């Protein structure tokens, strides 16, 4: 062990991770690491449990809500048309707040500002279902991060966070998802952390949840204090991850172990 590693160690004395971003030709969706059974579950809408959230979101889309008694459809019409490709472009720059916003944050903003409804809870059924329904309208389309220079600082910050060792276990996202994506942690495939299937139905959760919930799980796993849902830090990580996944096909709702 000692004989093999000193050279590598010396090259990285700064203590950073040996981060090598994954080359475009090597990129693989998390789906490709799953068992045949789980892949089949995702592929068939009749067996994909995430479709229940899609259906719930479809209902919510046309239900009037809030003090203005407006539904999403009142302004946006048919989601199958108006929302096609939208999720593939998020996070996007939000002029009102002057910073990037994630898709769930944008939907929550519509709920409060356009419909006059209560702020929906992050990871609550309503927001997760609506986000899943909207993202589902991009299924099969390529991830298409906007060519908006105002997003560059968030992407850079997301990459910095991705490569920062965190928690008592002192691991960065990149320690596993750039440097060891071909390996297995415990019995589970590490994967490359491409967010193509979100919100996903995770068998471990027995529910659909967001990319931020998934990242929270990893942060707790390395014994770090997770960021707050909707925080700039999570949005920056999302912006970075979507830029890494540019061109890959959206899968929402993905099914993952």
């Amino acid at each position, binding site marked *: *062990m*000692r004989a093999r*590693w*000193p050279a*590598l*160690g010396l*090259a*990285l*004395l*700064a*203590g*950073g*991770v*040996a981060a090598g971003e994954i080359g475009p030709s090597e990129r693989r969706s998390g789906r490709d690491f799953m068992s045949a059974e789980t892949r089949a579950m995702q592929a068939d809408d009749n067996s994909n449990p995430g479709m229940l959230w899609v259906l719930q979101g479809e209902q919510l889309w046309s239900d009037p809500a809030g003090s203005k008694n407006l539904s999403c459809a009142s302004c946006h019409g048919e989601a199958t048309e108006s929302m096609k490709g939208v999720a593939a472009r998020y996070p996007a720059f939000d002029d009102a707040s002057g910073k990037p916003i994630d898709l769930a944050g944008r939907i929550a903003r519509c709920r409060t500002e356009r419909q006059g409804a209560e702020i929906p809870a992050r990871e609550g059924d309503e927001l997760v279902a609506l986000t899943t329904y909207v993202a589902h309208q991009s299924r099969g389309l390529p991830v298409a991060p906007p060519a908006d220079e105002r997003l560059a600082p968030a992407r850079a910050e997301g990459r910095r966070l991705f490569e*920062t*060792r*965190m*928690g*008592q*276990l*002192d*691991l960065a996202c990149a*320690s*596993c998802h750039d*440097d*060891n994506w071909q*390996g*297995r*942690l*415990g*019995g589970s495939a*590490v994967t490359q952390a491409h967010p193509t299937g979100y919100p996903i139905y995770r068998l471990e959760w027995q529910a659909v949840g967001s990319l931020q919930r998934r990242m929270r799980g990893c*942060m*707790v796993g*390395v*014994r*770090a*204090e997770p960021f707050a849902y909707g925080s700039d830090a999570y949005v920056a990580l999302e912006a970075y991850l979507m830029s890494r996944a540019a061109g890959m096909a959206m899968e929402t709702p993905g099914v993952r172990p």
Partner: protein
Amino acid sequence: MGAALLALTAPAGAQPVGATDVPTLIAYEVAGDAITGPLGGTRGDADRGAKLVAERQKSLCVLCHSGPFPDPHLQGNLAPDLKGVGVRLSEGQIRLRVVDMKRLNPASIMPAYYGLPAGERVAATWRGRPILEPGEIEDIVAYLVTLKDE
């Protein structure tokens, strides 16, 4: 007797662990790529070490390492297989690798099991605490030196 006192007169390069504003850890002496004496002066128990290595919440060993432990299908492969590690490495070499692998390889993904947390945003529960206590480290070392079959 031994390790803690030795550390007070440790040669350059063998930095005692701990600082004044955080919980102090037991000091130890690094000689080459080994910590010769047991942490706290007492060697561990191999049976307790075997249980601790196989356990998935506290030691976490098997998340990255495979080896001659129960449930091979739940073992990771991000780190060297521990089968035969007792032949490849001495007790003292194993001890240093468990205590602080990053002394040998700063880029290692293996956390320092007996050090103060180095990552950012350490959760409150774990702040200022090593992953394992000296006695637990010694139990694991006592077990790993018994893995002689290659």
